[in-house]
């Protein structure tokens, strides 16, 4: 959504505001500061200035204050020679493990509001950090830094000593694990040859029996079970279970039978991992479409190339995002639930500023909603910066 071309005055205004921020703030720098590569995009500039290295923190801050860049990045990798002009001359020494969740991956992102996008990404992000990175991968929370990206998502920097040397291929394995790619269904479902099974109180010879892990089992085993149970509940509780079942390619006859079979007691037993409650139920769990859906229900998300790339540039914590004016701020897992980026990452004050709005737009910042129509009007500074960054208005 962009409406106007920014005028020279608008660009200068933004840069001034950014500069005043960099002058006031005592920006902390990344660890291994002098081993990192830095890169910047400037207001009104073309392309990115890369391959910069700084040896002193003072020098770095002076640079930010002088140039007041639109975007600031640092390399997740650290190098022997971070400022070498060619990648292969830098001599890679290691890299953080990065996860980047951004709203542009959401299905249908364009049809939901910015607020909702951020909310949805946040839920995914919590799942990624809490469920995958902490529970499965065992990273202690102290080894991770979490940030609101200043744009449409969140970043997680894993700085555990075990990750720095991981190759790109190793990181790919981690991504595949999180997204459930290439997951073997047989890991989850196994047929136990029981010879006998209890069905409707009678002992029947079945030869085989389908087992699935309990939803509280660790890792993917429990996760996919939970996914299946969620789907099952979703079907049973929906207004039109038959229609839902048809969506999985189940015929009407079988669907009816299945719903008949699914007594509360049976659902309870299914939750304990006993899938073989009847032939129809068993066959249903072997349904391919259903399994795929369960995997996608349970899977985590992350921007794959970002995680796999061992020489990635990522937005500098504490810097400002040129398209919103928001600050890249740290967030903590404990308070993430209540975290409202559209208040907490907004750093400019309320000084009134006269702007020329190019499109009708509603923005909610700092819990205040501004319904703006095209034309000249006064808005608080933080709204002005946001509108200009998004190219929705010019300075008057």
């Amino acid at each position, binding site marked *: 959504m962009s409406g106007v071309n920014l005028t020279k005055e608008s660009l200068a205004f933004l840069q001034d505001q950014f500069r005043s921020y960099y002058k006031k703030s005592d920006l902390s720098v990344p660890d291994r500061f002098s081993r990192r590569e830095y890169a910047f995009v400037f207001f009104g500039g073309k392309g990115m200035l890369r391959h910069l290295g700084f040896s002193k923190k003072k020098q770095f801050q002076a640079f930010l204050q002088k140039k007041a860049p639109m975007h600031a990045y640092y390399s997740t990798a650290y190098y022997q020679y971070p400022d070498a002009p060619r990648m292969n001359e830098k001599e890679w020494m290691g890299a953080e493990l990065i996860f980047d969740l951004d709203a542009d991956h959401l299905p249908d992102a364009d049809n939901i509001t910015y607020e909702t996008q951020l909310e949805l990404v946040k839920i995914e992000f919590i799942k990624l950090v809490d469920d995958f990175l902490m*529970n*499965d*991968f*065992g*990273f202690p929370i102290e080894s991770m830094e979490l940030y609101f990206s200043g744009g449409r998502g969140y970043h997680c920097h894993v700085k555990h000593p*075990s*990750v720095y040397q*991981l190759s*790109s*291929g*190793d990181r*790919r*394995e*981690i991504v*595949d*694990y999180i997204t*459930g*790619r*290439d*997951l*073997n269904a047989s*890991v989850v479902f196994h047929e136990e040859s029981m010879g006998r099974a209890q069905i409707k109180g009678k002992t029947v010879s079945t030869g085989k029996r389908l087992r699935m892990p309990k939803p509280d089992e*660790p*890792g*993917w*085993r429990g996760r996919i079970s939970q996914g299946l149970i969620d789907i099952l509940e979703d079907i049973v509780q929906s207004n039109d279970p038959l229609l839902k079942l048809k969506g999985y390619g189940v015929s009407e006859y079988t669907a009816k039978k299945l719903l008949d079979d699914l007594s509360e007691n049976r659902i309870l037993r299914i939750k304990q991992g006993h899938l073989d409650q009847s032939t129809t139920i068993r066959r249903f769990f072997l349904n391919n479409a259903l399994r795929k859906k369960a995997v996608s229900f349970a899977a985590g998300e992350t921007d*794959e*190339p970002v995680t*796999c*790339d061992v020489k990635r540039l990522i937005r500098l914590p504490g810097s400002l995002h040129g398209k919103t004016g928001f600050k890249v701020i740290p967030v903590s897992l404990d308070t993430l639930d209540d975290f409202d980026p559209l208040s907490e990452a907004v750093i400019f004050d309320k000084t009134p500023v006269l702007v020329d709005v190019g499109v009708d737009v509603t923005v909610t910042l700092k819990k205040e909603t501004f319904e703006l129509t095209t034309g000249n009007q006064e808005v608080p500074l933080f709204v002005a910066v946001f509108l200009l960054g998004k190219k929705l208005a010019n300075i008057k």
Partner: protein
Amino acid sequence: MKPLNTLARYPFLKDAKTYVKNQGIAVTELIKDPLYDRARSIAIERVEHAFEHKDVGVRQLSKESDCIMELFSYPLSRMITCCINDSYFTRRYALGEAVRFYKNLIKENTFFLVDIVKEFNLNIQFDGENQHLSIYFTDYLTHAPTRYKHWKLVNRELQNGYISLSSKDLSRVTQEALRHRINNELLDKPCHELIQKTFSEEIQRLQNKIATQRKNNETIPVGKLDVKKLPPCIKRILADVQAGENVPHMGRFALVSFLNSLKLSTQDIIDLFNTAPDFDEEKSRYQIEHITGGVSSTSYKPPGCDKLKTYGLCPSEEIDRICKKTHHPLSYYRYKWKIENKRKKKKSDKKPNKKNEA
């Protein structure tokens, strides 16, 4: 210190090294003294067996002298390998040692295994009571053959950073750790002059063997495939597979499904892969057939440029003019055919004219 015949079976362990050192025998003695004739011939056997059968082989270890000769043969084998001075051969030798290691390991009990694993600095947890083993995931990633689907992290049980695995699987991971270790140790080691002199004949013979094998591989026409027309991505993956590099699952998948679309049979594809040092025909056949639809009933479509790019399989430095025009490796290949056919047609159009003139 472990018993002598254990050391003989695992001559790369620290204890074995200490034992050899403690004997106080100079390298020159080992190479020259008739006393060690047997150690020297075992050394050659090790190396040759590794090259031909991917396994350094087994010998009798009933007498003390058997064990000692076996132990001494190991450093000699390594030195000979360095003098052969061929990275493919070195990889193959490392594989041979590692495969034998694995075959021995799976016969041992879990306590022994756990003890050995310590030497490889693998971070594992062992619960002796219920014999439950697990390994820290980064060590797993470094060594496990994740190019095979069931070894992929996603198909393993991961909790709190540790992956549960059977003692057999841990043996396999340790096999890879040994392979990597020997490979790295021998990589840039110079050839000992005296070894070169003493074993010159054998070294020459082995070098010839490598050369012949290379030649054979080059001249084998691979079905209907014209390697020159392959797009950079596929060319790269194929070269890696042939060199026995660790190609990720997606890479193998892209390659096999691509070749399958060109109507290469499973056998054609196996022949193409056959040069990898750790090539396992049966396993490969199964995997290939899985992709081509020989095992399950679905045959998969090869991935396009977009997908290859996200997987980091598109070598951006090698992209050429045709890449920019096409969006799929298959269209790249077909496009190259088209240009060639046009060219041929032009030529053949000209030829009859010339004849007419004559």
